[in-house]
């Protein structure tokens, strides 16, 4: 047995090391980073092929492909980190199309000087998220930018899934009379991040809701209910996503404020900062629009799933040539729930 000596390569110092330009230059350092850090955690048969791309079986049906770039500060936050977030985010984009997510790719842009220990934590978290979701990362890429030109790490993931025959979900399919449901509490992710910001910092029990939703969505689709639209209300929150759907479908909506699920701590943090939870980001919630007759069945299916325990029916689709999303307030009045204007900023003085 020709034992090739494992030596002559000094192992990566993950504990104390930092990303340097060599890790992105295509040489031995890069190969080592990929092998000892990325492949070590993410390893699967497709990555092991070691080629420029992954060779995957082409099944029947139509493919759904979605991509999402992830930038988040801080990189580690209560309830998750950029690693699992980048896996969940793209799985959710594929899943809300009604497709079964099969594979992911991951592209990393690393900033020179970034701690390898942090990178390892992030990649480990990605691996765990991918494993749990049953969606392997089959190909990837790494680039390094000079210090000061990145924010530690940016991760772009692309997901591919298969859409079964006969299924068609789109933001353009909402019809007047349809019921609007949401799978759980609003604003958890955005407020978990906001609480960590140095300038606003407060202590809170709020954790990000980052999660892969394909299991929950499967449960909804398996009911056989007439599902028109599925979407995950991420940036811009519920309000922005509903406005997108209203415009795409050419309809209006009427929400019931009292029905909107919001955790008390999220509501309280929003009070401190003058924010509206309807506009705060979620990373593990789905909006379901379905035929009104099927709403109870869908709600039951959502609530039966661990990620949908706080699901609620929050309103209905209406005819409206102006495509307004409106709300009956808990106070008994009416108002528009408008698109988000610009970036959401605390409003305090």
């Amino acid at each position, binding site marked *: 047995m020709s034992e090739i000596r494992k030596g002559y390569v000094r192992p990566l110092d993950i504990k104390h090391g930092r990303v340097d330009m060599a890790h992105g230059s295509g040489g031995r350092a890069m190969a080592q980073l990929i092998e000892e850090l990325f492949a070590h955690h993410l390893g699967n048969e497709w990555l092991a092929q070691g080629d420029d791309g992954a060779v995957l079986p082409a099944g029947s049906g139509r493919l759904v492909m979605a991509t999402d770039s992830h930038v988040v500060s801080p990189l580690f936050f209560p309830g998750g980190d950029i690693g699992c977030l980048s896996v969940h985010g793209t799985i959710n984009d594929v899943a809300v199309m009604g497709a079964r997510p099969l594979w992911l790719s991951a592209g990393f842009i690393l900033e020179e000087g970034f701690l390898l220990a942090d990178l390892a934590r992030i990649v480990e978290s990605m691996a765990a998220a991918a494993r749990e979701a049953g969606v392997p990362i089959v190909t990837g890429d790494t680039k390094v930018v000079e210090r000061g030109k990145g924010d530690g790490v940016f991760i772009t993931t692309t997901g591919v899934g298969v859409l079964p025959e006969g299924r068609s979900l789109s933001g353009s399919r909402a019809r007047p009379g349809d019921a609007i449901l949401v799978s759980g509490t609003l604003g958890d992710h955005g407020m978990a991040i906001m609480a960590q910001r140095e300038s606003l910092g407060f*202590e*809170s029990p*709020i954790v990000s809701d980052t999660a892969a939703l394909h299991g929950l969505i499967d449960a909804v689709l398996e009911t056989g209910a007439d599902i028109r639209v599925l979407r995950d209300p991420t940036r811009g929150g519920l309000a922005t996503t509903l406005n997108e759907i209203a415009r795409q479908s050419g309809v209006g909506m009427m929400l019931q404020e009292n029905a909107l699920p919001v955790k*008390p*701590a999220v509501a309280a943090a929003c*009070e*401190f900062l*003058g924010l509206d939870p309807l506009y705060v980001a979620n990373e593990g919630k789905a909006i379901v629009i379905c035929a009104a007759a099927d709403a109870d069945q869908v709600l039951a299916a959502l609530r039966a799933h661990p990620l949908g325990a706080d699901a609620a029916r929050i309103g209905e689709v209406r005819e409206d040539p102006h495509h307004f999303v409106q709300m009956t307030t808990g106070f008994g009045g009416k108002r528009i729930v408008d698109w988000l204007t610009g970036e959401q900023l605390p409003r305090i003085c």
Partner: protein
Amino acid sequence: MCLAIPAQVIELRDGDNAVVDLAGVRKEISLSLVEGVQVGDYVIVHVGYALNKLDPEEAEKTLALFAEMGGAMVEEPPVAH
């Protein structure tokens, strides 16, 4: 808009500071503008400062007044808009 909210003081800290709690959210604020604040008091918090103590008795009076009005009006049929 002078956003300010009532929150309960749960801890007094050095440097005329205090920790307030609102539904589990906690924030360190300054007490430099108020006097005689104790743990348990509710203060009106604005940009990290307590503006005033909230008077619980006055709050109860105001609420009682609201409730009284609701009670007095039950005979009236609801009016649609």
